[in-house]
């Protein structure tokens, strides 16, 4: 696969920008939810350990 065809594949034509906006928002949402939940669980465990 040469560089031009790879670029075309990633651009996804004239409407590629809409697809990329959705991809970025999806991964920001998923990533931040996973990070936030893990952080909350860690904090809760820490609080429980400190109390004991």
């Amino acid at each position, binding site marked *: 696969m040469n560089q031009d065809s790879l670029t075309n*594949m*990633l651009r*996804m*034509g*004239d*409407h*590629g920008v*809409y*697809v990329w*906006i*959705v*991809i970025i*928002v*999806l991964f920001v*949402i*998923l990533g931040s*939810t*996973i990070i936030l*939940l*893990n952080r*909350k*669980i860690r904090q*809760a*465990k820490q*609080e*429980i350990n400190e*109390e*004991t």
Partner: protein
Amino acid sequence: MIKKFFHQFASPKSYFAIANKFVKPFLALFFLLYIGALVWGLFFTPSDVVQGDSYRIIYMHVPASFMAQILFVVMAITSAIFLIWKLKLAAYVSKSIAPIGAIVTFFALFSGSIWGIPTWGTWWQWDARITSTLILFIMYLGLISLHASFENKDKADKFFSVLVLIGVVNIPIIKKSVDWWSTLHQSASITLTSKPAIDPVMLYPLIFSIISFIGLIFGLVILSSQNEILKREKYKSWIKNI
């Protein structure tokens, strides 16, 4: 034996221990599978004759819309279990689904709006499918606020569960909205009773993306329920040993 197994698993302690062991590999597996499904759908399927490449949003929008509804149905089932059998774990799971459901529904609305710009020429229409999904999003937010507004969490669980059971009536309305009313939103491309109205080249990555997204979101629900258990059971003796 089955009854014993369910009683054992239905205790927050057993559930937490099992979830703690499996949630991370489970999440990682379905995250990778979903990325695989996206790569397949986004880069290795042909463009649509009518919509061009914007149709590729389908691999994110359809799994999210499907999950937004499935999560509410699961929440209704766990709420019913809580109200009938008074299982605390069911109330915790029910409560922990609400924020994940709100996030997924928001994303379904957002991705649909973005898809609407090149396809319909507008990002919003007050049509039956979109409006009923917006109502679903508002219901998720309402349920989260309702639970947070109660000091007494046992009372909150009861009100929450009753409202979920009332709200679940919106799910068949969302599902059937495209058949009952003349809407801008297209009718279902995949049904159980008829042949899919979508080419297999595009259909297989779509099915793969839906299945992997279901796993990924249930992984988030498990993580969210662990957080809920830690908050609600923090004064219990078993939790000191985790």
